[in-house]
């Protein structure tokens, strides 16, 4: 099973920080997701992009985990050499993660 089979994802950026919100279609799976999708799993997944730490915030009222990736956007939208300067595409890759 892939993450995208049970959750939808939106990515945002502020400065050089990227946030990836992982939202369960069915919040009943919240505890199971929490156990599987830790900060270190996400940090490891984005090992090439994220040069800082990954913090995880839990929002059980909407069945969501919010991952905040520090120093992850090559300097941010105004400075990055990447095509995707905002990092808007980043979250869609995480959906491919096998759980």
């Amino acid at each position, binding site marked *: 099973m892939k993450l*995208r089979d049970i959750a*939808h994802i*939106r990515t*945002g*950026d*502020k*400065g*050089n*920080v990227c*946030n990836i*919100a992982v*939202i369960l*279609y069915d919040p009943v799976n919240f505890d199971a997701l929490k156990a599987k999708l830790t900060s270190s799993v996400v940090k490891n*997944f984005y*090992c*090439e*992009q994220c040069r*800082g730490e990954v*913090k995880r*915030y839990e*929002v059980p*009222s*909407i*069945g*969501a985990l*919010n991952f*905040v990736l*520090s*120093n992850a956007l*090559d*300097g*941010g*939208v*105004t*400075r990055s*050499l*990447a*095509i*995707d300067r905002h990092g808007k*595409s*980043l979250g869609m*890759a995480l959906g*491919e993660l096998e759980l």
Partner: protein
Amino acid sequence: MKKIRIGCGSGGCAYERIEPAIELVCKGNIDYLVFECLSERTITDAQKDRIADPAKGYNPMLQERMSRILPLMRDHDFKIVSNMGGANAPEAVRQIEAIAKDLNVSVKIAMVEGDNILPSIHAYDAIPLFDADGSIVRDKDGHEKHLEDLQHVLSANVYLGSAAIRQALDEGADIVVTGRVADVSLFMGPLLHEFNWSDNAFDLRGQGLLTGHLMECCTQLTGGCYADPGVKDVKGLARLGHPIAEVSEDGAVLFTKVEGSGGFVSVDTCKEQMLYEIGDPSCYLTPDGIADFSHVSFEQVGTDRVRATGATSRLATDTYKANVGYLDSYLGVGAISFGGSTALDRARLCADVVQGRWHILGLKPLEKRIDFIGYDSLYGETIARTYEQRASYDIRLRIAVRASSEEQAKLLIREMQCLYINGPAGAAGIRTHIEPSISLASILVPCADIGIGTVKIREV
């Protein structure tokens, strides 16, 4: 129970469709129309425009948009709040006045200023730079970076709160034009004007901040930035309806859109937008209060109707965030395509050739990035190797460099321009581009230095 409807006419993009805003006015029964027109970068671009031409620096769509919207004010009772002023609110107001006169529409236009701190920027030289996660920015050796370390500062704007917008509306303005204010404040201004929520009405203000946050990116609430065919389908993306927030005096909030427009408003679109560009959901800093969204829930109460409950807030901090734009380098980008089963190998060879030329010529970029579009350009090689099922037949090599001067950037990138005949077989579609790299840094500025901003009202 007093209730108002706020529509969002644009969500911070350089260009935004105009007809959905007209639809909001004509069919949405709205009391306020908010145009949110600034992103992190646009205020710096606007400042550059103003430096080049003192009559520019406001939103480039202003004339087109206001020429279409102002005539609707004759038959529909609504007010406009917008940060269309960008880096030049006085000129934006002059333009709106001229359009209103031309169209013979009488309006009271308020201008909010006070966000531009460029003239007094050196007072903050010793202030450390911070990133969006709250951490202090450090150089390679671990030393704190301060404002004074930035060369060639082009713009410096604080994110003002809603107080000046509210004051303008209290004084009877029909149109409020601002420069940089926090996006949520464009919505909090009307809410505080209408409902007069006290400073310590933390739950009510929390619901107001939630309203502003969900509305500020416009169609990202109504099906934009959401569709994934077969998984998350959205009907009518080409004519997405813009969102409407229905807010009651007691803090009840409902999100909807114009009936018959494209897209949809669902619990899931609301959840995605609530966490968009958010760090700690229990501590979202705004000049109008620290919002706590950690206990929010959404309920679908009808087609395209979602109720939101559970937001709260705390008092705002005593500092404003300011973004400082500065010129720190030049970017050069070149791209070149390869096709066929050996496309990736030839693209790699081509990248080696370019770097070989730099070596021969003694050129060295400050930084470089080499991407193979169609393979690893979005996610890098680690993720590409894990998930790429087969080699693409269609690869575009992209080389981006940072250089200390425009001349250096040109020398580096022009080595890609002769590769039709000097590179690997079948090199195609060469494009190159050089631009100044405008970087942003953030500092915190005491609110006491700035106040709430100034309000000036003119009548047409």
